[in-house]
């Protein structure tokens, strides 16, 4: 059974599901539901203690959509006003920003991330799952080289072959700069949402001169 994702103008995703296919969907992104789809609350998890918080997060913010007919489709638009990104199941595990997750096909595929926890809190590990992610700007993909640095809030997902590390506390803005060791792909947001939050809050951190480490 497959999920087909196509880009939808402006900046949405149309997902087409086989009959019987289930999808966990961030509740606020669903704005229309046809008769060929059934909607119910996310299933209560019997997750082990180590993944309990993650399971509770999914229960609180996600709902379950089930396709009742072949070719049932649903449209997703991220509430962040930016673009959306569909990632088919990857051979390598992916680490992804949980707050950017719009949809996934298998909640059991998610597990707490360990190697990203220090440099990038709020990331989880996904293994062989269909994922849809939302961006504040346009999503784009890069192959991380050892010297490349990204503003922390622009990192949506990356391959588990990469290990993130913080290289400066303020990357010419309110957030840290992140570089990766190893080689792999990184999915990025073209806009920093930390910068927008700082503008909205009107509170930028105190200034300090610094050089990249």
């Amino acid at each position, binding site marked *: 059974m497959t999920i087909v994702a196509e880009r939808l103008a402006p900046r949405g995703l149309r997902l087409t599901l086989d009959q019987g296919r289930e999808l966990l969907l961030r509740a606020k992104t669903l704005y229309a539901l046809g008769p060929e789809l059934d909607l119910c609350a996310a299933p209560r998890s019997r997750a082990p203690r180590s993944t309990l918080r993650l399971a509770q997060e999914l229960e609180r913010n996600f709902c379950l959509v089930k396709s009742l007919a072949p070719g049932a489709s649903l449209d997703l638009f991220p509430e962040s*006003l930016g673009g959306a990104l569909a990632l088919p199941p990857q051979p390598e595990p992916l680490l992804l920003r949980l707050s950017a997750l719009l949809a996934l096909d298998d909640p059991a595929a998610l597990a707490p991330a360990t190697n990203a926890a220090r440099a990038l809190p709020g990331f989880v590990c996904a293994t062989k799952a269909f994922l849809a992610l939302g961006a504040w700007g*346009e999503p784009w993909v890069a192959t991380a080289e050892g010297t490349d640095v990204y503003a922390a809030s622009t990192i949506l997902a990356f391959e588990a072959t990469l290990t993130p590390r913080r290289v400066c506390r303020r990357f*010419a803005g*309110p*957030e840290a700069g992140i570089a990766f060791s190893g080689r792999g792909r990184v999915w*990025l947001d073209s806009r920093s949402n930390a*910068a927008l939050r700082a503008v909205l809050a009107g509170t930028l951190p105190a200034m300090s001169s*610094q050089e*990249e480490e």
Partner: protein
Amino acid sequence: MQATLLNQAPHQTLRLDVPSGAALCVADGSLVSRSGGPLVLSPRRSPSAAELGIWARGAGLAAAFIRSPVPFWRVLAQSAATLRLAAPWPAELCRFRPDDDPTLHLATDALLAFDETCRLLPVSWPGQGIFSRLSAAPRFHTASGTGEIWAMSFGGWETIAVDGELRLDARLVLGFAGGPQVRLLPAVPRAGLPGKAARAWVLAFSGHGQVFLCTRHADEWAGQMLSTPLSQARDVRPE
């Protein structure tokens, strides 16, 4: 320095290929990625070195100065690097060359990035004193020198011609060029108090020239985002 615009408005991104040893200034939070050689990042209070000097002499304002936000960063490329810059909000980007138009004025909030070879001098409105500097009066800079300035709108970018008299909400004005006469007027009568008494301003243009406007109102949008849920702001009432 080579610049390339990526993506479509209002999600435009600026890619800058910076040669070794080159320096530029970028707005706080606009730098989203860097590849290539390392950078030296240092905060900068103002796009204008001259204005920085005035501030530094104001010993009495030192506390406010230290607590004020960092609007710009100086970025020095220690070797050739590629930078990606984006406005924090949905924006359209526009390039200016001050040597093409010596009468170019740009709002401080509209500056995304500029070469260090560009000179930006603050505009002093008639009657504007040291206290009104702390008020909500819009801040503009006169651009000169060589190099490029990249500016950002909030929403779309519009250019309208001035031919005669024109009054505009100052918060929508990103800049002006071509030498129109400009006066800054409070939009509501002042209550005899300097500074924060007047929060809204009008720019009154006369003569001939061009005015650059953004199509959205950043203050109103931010205020609405922070104060009222959007569903209530739209006044949606179910039947």
